[in-house]
């Protein structure tokens, strides 16, 4: 049996779990752990500039790989700075482990220097947490933390480590558990066979079916299965903001994103459907609009690994608790025994109807010569990256444009804070993506508001040579707020205007990067080309876009799914 200090155990346990990257920031309570990190090369530590960004980096790392992201911070302010990042991961079911330092056990509760009750502070936004009380318990706590974070419905787990137990002066026996089993935690993966049969019956009987695919399909790596199922049934597919990429955005059966800023055809298809197959989606209020008017004709089959998601907001007629991959496989085991070759003829009328909604071309916009429309920038980005980039987004209008105008071909390609809507998420998330995929193109689509919420990470990018491409849609305003003020508050722009914008080009240069300013439409293509030609440098594209543009379509509050504004003057 190996003897080692608590700090060495932390690092050894991370190695035993298979952790390659830790995003963190040192401080008093974790200095012993930092000393143990110094002594080895297997676990690579990334020094951030703000702990919130560390959590978003671990999050982006996790979203783009499916692996669990790891954060290491000190007690007190270090720990509390991660809370927004933890909550972001929690809302989107992202696997993450946050190791936080804590004051020595004997001082807990004394309001000691840099003491906060991290387990208490984080409780509402974690899947689970541990306050480790003895050094010998460290390996098991860490093994359990990763097991819980990554299994079932994934989520963040906090491991709080008092300073005395990681003390480098004392040695303890190190035993890493060979496997983790917990009598109180056994997530269900397989759907109930009877429910599967009922679901297949409903799907095959449906005249107007639709697949409504969410982030759960990505978490379960079920994209290929979902695509196969959609093709077998000849059914239209819509993805949630979190589900984009689970079904190819260029597939003829794809009808776009649904919900508040969904396409007309997606929302119409949902509203008129007689059978909705929800796969790892949670009927979020940004999807359903008024639940009382939600899809009145539909038989709802809801597949989700988390029973609490089922019938939480919208009642499911056929609930199936299980992981999307396993359940779709089960669906196939029933479906394979049936002849469904007539789906094409059967759904012909349905597709005719859908094509008619599509012909409205709800994403069309006018592009005058004298301004740059933000939509145009995203389309240009798509071309210049051949649709293959990892696109991380911040929160606001630019996020919706990036979701709607860049068709995602693969899962884990589109990285955004869907549930919490955290401004400041984009840049650090794209950094996490870049650490996980060193050769890939990692892009951030951001706004002048959001980028300033974690801009300090430009410094981290220089330190680690991250050639991120920042596409900032600068509208000199908190655009999404401004849009709502235009629509609901008679254009009173209360504090949504940013009066003293920095010179972003100079700012990028000050951090050692390349800055490019684009003010005119005719410069856009060249500038994009220059940006992506800079293979080894971070490029900050400060693109002056139309300040008055709104995101459309947009659901009308209190209405049904398909009650929408289509432009400033048109509605459904």
């Amino acid at each position: 049996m190996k003897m080692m200090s608590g700090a060495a155990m932390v690092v050894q346990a991370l190695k035993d779990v298979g952790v390659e990257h830790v995003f963190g920031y040192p401080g008093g309570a974790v200095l012993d752990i930092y000393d143990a990190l110094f002594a080895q090369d297997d676990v690579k530590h990334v020094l951030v500039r703000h702990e919130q960004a560390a959590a978003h980096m671990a999050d982006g790392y996790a979203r783009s790989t499916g692996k669990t992201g790891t954060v290491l911070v000190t007690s007190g302010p270090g720990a509390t700075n991660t809370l927004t990042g933890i909550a972001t991961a929690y809302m989107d079911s992202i696997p993450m482990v946050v190791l936080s330092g804590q004051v020595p056990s004997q001082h807990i509760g004394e309001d000691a220097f840099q003491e906060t009750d991290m387990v208490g502070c984080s409780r509402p936004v974690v899947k689970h947490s541990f306050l480790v009380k003895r050094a010998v318990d460290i390996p098991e706590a860490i093994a359990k933390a990763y097991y819980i974070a990554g299994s079932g419905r994934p989520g963040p787990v906090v491991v709080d480590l008092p300073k005395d137990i990681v003390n480098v002066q004392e040695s303890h026996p190190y035993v890493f558990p060979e496997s983790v089993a917990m009598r109180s935690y056994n997530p269900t993966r397989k759907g109930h066979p009877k429910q599967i049969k009922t679901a297949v019956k409903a799907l095959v009987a449906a005249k107007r079916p639709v697949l409504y695919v969410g982030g759960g399909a990505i978490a379960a790596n079920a994209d290929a299965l979902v695509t196969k199922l959609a093709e077998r049934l000849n059914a239209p597919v819509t993805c949630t903001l979190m589900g984009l990429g689970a079904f190819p955005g260029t597939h003829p059966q794809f009808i776009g994103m649904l919900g508040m800023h969904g396409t007309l055809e997606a929302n119409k298809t949902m509203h008129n459907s007689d059978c909705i197959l929800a796969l790892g989606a949670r009927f979020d209020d940004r999807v359903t609009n008024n639940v009382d008017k939600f899809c009145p004709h539909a038989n709802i089959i809801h597949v989700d690994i988390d029973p609490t998601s089922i019938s939480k907001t919208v009642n499911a007629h056929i609930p199936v608790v299980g992981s999307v991959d396993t359940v779709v496989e089960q669906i196939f085991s029933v479906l394979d025994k049936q002849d469904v070759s007539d789906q094409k003829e059967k759904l012909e009328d349905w597709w005719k109807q859908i094509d008619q909604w599509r012909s409205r071309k709800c994403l069309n916009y006018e592009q005058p010569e004298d301004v740059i429309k933000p939509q145009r920038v995203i389309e240009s980005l798509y071309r210049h990256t051949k649709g293959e980039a990892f696109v991380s987004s911040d929160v606001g209008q630019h996020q919706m444009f990036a979701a709607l105008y860049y068709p995602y071909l693969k899962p884990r390609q589109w990285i955004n804070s869907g549930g919490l809507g955290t401004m400041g998420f984009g840049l650090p998330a794209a950094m996490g993506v870049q650490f996980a995929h060193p050769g890939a193109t990692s892009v951030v689509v951001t706004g002048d508001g959001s980028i300033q919420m974690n801009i300090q990470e430009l410094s981290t990018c220089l330190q680690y040579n991250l050639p991120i491409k920042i596409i900032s849609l600068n509208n000199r305003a908190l655009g999404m707020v401004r849009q709502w003020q235009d629509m609901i508050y008679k254009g009173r722009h209360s504090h949504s205007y940013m009066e003293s914008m920095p010179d972003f080009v100079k700012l990028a240069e000050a951090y050692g990067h390349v800055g490019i300013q684009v003010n005119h439409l005719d410069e856009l293509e060249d500038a994009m080309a220059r940006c992506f030609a800079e293979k080894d440098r971070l490029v900050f594209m400060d693109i002056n876009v139309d300040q008055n543009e709104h995101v459309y379509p947009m659901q009308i509050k209190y209405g049904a799914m398909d009650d929408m504004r289509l432009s400033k003057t048109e509605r459904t």
Partner: protein
Amino acid sequence: MKRILSVLMENAPGALSRIVGLFSQRGYNVDSLCVAPTDDPSLSRLTIVSHGDDKVIEQITKQVNKLVDVLKVTDLTDGSHVERELMLIKVATRNELARAEVKRNVDIFRARIVDVHSSNYTIEITGTSDKLDAFSQTIAQSTEIIESSRTGVCGLARGEKALRP
């Protein structure tokens, strides 16, 4: 509607705060909460009395079940079950009449006087919450209630059914 939920969970630090936090975080009602370790000291048994429509109660049950420390949750309300609550109640007995009246009610309700002081009695009574309510209302008609403390409901299903790990 009133619901009695019975929960079996790890007797681990922080476990109770997760339950309590869940209720406040999601706006669920807690009418009473009764908790103690079981015969197996690694486990705790909780009885939560809540109210809400079927949808809310279903969510509460699922959300509690989802907590990593929770092994099992069951709704005792509809099935046949035993439920008990204990109350200690201190009442003023300043004169002979009050003492006699209190004693009479104690007998009727099958309660017990567990402490006697020159000017008050402390009474122990167990039963359903309704019975405890009725007892305090009756006592209040004849004398003053000085203080009382109730445990909240604890319950078990009747017969073969059991919450075991």
